[in-house]
């Protein structure tokens, strides 16, 4: 393992290049742009031999990779926020056509009001499209999960798009030591893409045909089954990754100091780092606190979650998204995972860090000690801002 001190954008772009995609297409949008710029420069310098299609919108970026993937080549795109929402229609299409597109979502808040900072409302909003979603805690994981994503997506039992999510600004903008694997190692881990079907005059197929009511449901069922298969495959790919690269990355759920934990802090993405820090501090004060981090959000690892979380008395689900009019979407799903079970932890929904608001350790310590929380709890809601139409 040799680490280099590089920026997250660069690390992701290099991991992309190492995965040997043949068609790249993406559209600039803050804070994803750095990835696209790095890739564009690699192509301009001739160090990455791929077609870089400079499109006029994310709708087209997603459509370009759809077309290229349908023609049987490995593809890559990246986006965030408004761009991901604009892709949404195409993403459903990519999943429905069972195309193994891999993309990076650099998580950012959604408009209006326009806000370019980090939360996870964007990726959560495309939850039901049939894309696998993996969340990275740091840039190393952003790299490793990307390489794994191709393995998972292109497996003939899966054939679905995989999206690796990285918290905007917090990860790709940061410079830190990252181990970028060698081309030989990646080549040995990731075989060339072997499409099951492709657009080929020698063997014509039709893609995107109409499915009537007597057939449509079955297409959904097949995707759902593939998602279930992914629950088995993801840990296997992680194990193979470790065997090749000597690094444990990936899997479904990470548990941190949960063995005897009474309070569990549950989250996805880079916030886990702050939560681990908090757990350490609270443990030093004598409180039994642990962290559960979902790496896979789709497919949803309910069983794994029950296993890691089952003994905690209380679970705080800290998430950077909200289903307005309900609760945090992750919290809802964690609750559902324990439905009808006893004993089960008391599960609280904490909506935090929306639109890039920093989540300090002190805040989490306070939440962990607060006996009752609103449902959902809007973490660090400012008292000095006038809230039109709201009674405090």
């Amino acid at each position, binding site marked *: 393992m040799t680490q280099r001190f590089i920026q997250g954008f660069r690390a992701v772009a290099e991991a992309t290049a190492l995965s040997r995609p043949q068609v790249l297409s993406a559209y600039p949008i803050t804070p994803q742009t750095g990835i696209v*710029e790095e890739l564009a420069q690699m192509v301009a310098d001739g160090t990455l031999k791929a077609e870089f299609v400079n499109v*006029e919108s994310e709708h087209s970026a997603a459509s370009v990779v759809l077309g290229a993937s349908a023609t049987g080549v490995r593809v890559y795109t990246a986006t965030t926020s408004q761009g991901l929402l604009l892709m949404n229609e195409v993403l459903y299409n990519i999943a429905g056509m069972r195309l193994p597109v891999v993309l990076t979502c650099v998580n950012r808040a959604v408009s209006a009001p326009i806000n370019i900072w980090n939360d996870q409302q964007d990726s959560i909003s495309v939850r039901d499209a049939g894309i696998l979603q993996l969340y990275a805690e740091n840039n190393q994981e952003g790299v490793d999960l990307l390489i794994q994503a191709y393995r998972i997506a292109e497996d003939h039992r899966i054939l679905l798009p995989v999206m690796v999510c990285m918290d905007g600004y917090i990860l790709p903008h940061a410079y830190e030591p990252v181990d970028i694997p060698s081309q030989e190692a990646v080549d040995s881990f990731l075989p060339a893409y072997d499409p099951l079907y492709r657009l080929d005059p020698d063997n014509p197929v039709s893609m995107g045909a109409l499915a009537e009511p007597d057939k449509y449901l079955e297409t959904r069922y097949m995707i759902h089954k593939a998602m279930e298969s992914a629950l088995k495959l993801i840990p296997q790919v992680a194990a193979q990754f470790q065997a090749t690269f000597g690094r444990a990355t990936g899997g479904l759920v990470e548990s941190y100091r949960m063995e005897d934990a009474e309070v569990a802090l549950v989250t996805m993405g880079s916030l886990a780092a702050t939560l681990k820090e908090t757990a350490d501090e609270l443990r030093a004060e004598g409180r039994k606190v642990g962290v559960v981090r979902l790496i896979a959000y789709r497919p949803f690892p309910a069983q794994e979650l029950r296993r890691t979380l089952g003994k905690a008395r209380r679970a705080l689900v800290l998430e950077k998204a909200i289903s307005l009019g309900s609760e945090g979407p992750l919290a809802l799903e964690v609750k559902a995972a324990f439905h009808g079970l006893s004993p089960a932890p008391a599960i609280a929904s904490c909506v935090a860090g929306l639109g890039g608001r920093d989540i300090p350790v002190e805040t989490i310590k306070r939440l962990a000690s607060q006996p009752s929380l609103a449902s959902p709890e809007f973490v660090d809601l400012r008292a000095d801002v006038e809230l039109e139409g709201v009674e405090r």
Partner: protein
Amino acid sequence: MSRNIRDVEKALDHTFASGHSACSGCGEALGARLVLRAAGKNVILTTATGCLEVFSANYPYSSWGVPWIHSLFENSAAVASGIEAALRVTGKLGKTKVIAQGGDGATADIGFGALSGMFDRGHDILYVCYDNEAYMNTGVQRSGLTPYDASTTTSPAGKEAWGNPRPKKDLPQIVVAHGVPYVATASVAYPHDLDRKVKKALSIHGPKYIQVHVPCPLGWRHDSALTIDIAELAVKTGLYPLVEFENGKLVAVRRIPKKVPVEEYLKPQGRFAHLFRSEEGRSQIEVIQVMADANIERYHLMARPETEVEPWSPTEA
């Protein structure tokens, strides 16, 4: 050459307030002020996501002294269509004018479908495109209006590339082809001409399109004191012809008294610096010269003028 932005700005009133956060030497900020001043106060404006929207409206502040709405990057023309329909149904259209605004990316790329739809439906809207020739708000990426060979972060110059491999999309002609009654190009180097064009456009019923050339010191990498000079050189080289079409016919052009070689325009801009580093680069400059010459010929920019713009006499300023 010492006309700077301050001199020009002095002449303006304040429907577009200063104190916004545009960079120094921003051509787009100046362009918007000029358009607003010409439009008067009885207007409703839309703006696409982009620099203009970001630097002018950061809650709780806004530079806009007239009703203004920003929705998304790709829908300025469609949102304006909705505003126009609402004014129509409430009998206010005509007295109140609608102006849709967008950057070159919003207009020529991601919002192009919405733009075409707005023209096609014949809405009574003036669409103003602030053309700084790249996606500046996200840090200088290529757009459909980025000129040939300009180095941007998604069309970088490199060992195997000269920068943007495609010529600038001829958007004014595309709009003309929609049968739009008034189409013009303008430049912040010619504020009186821009003022006249906005007023003329707003006097015409139906869809209108004005594309204003607005240098971006950051993205074009020129000295921020040179914004006006650079804009002027773009016109005088023939690279940015100032033209007016009414009902599909070319009715006026700004003539070039003496042709300036494109090199003088390209040289002060970092986005073209790579062209000056080698012999092959030089031959690329030749290609750009041919493009400028083609414009000059196509629009008779140096011919004798029955088509010349009549001089505009300032009544204010």
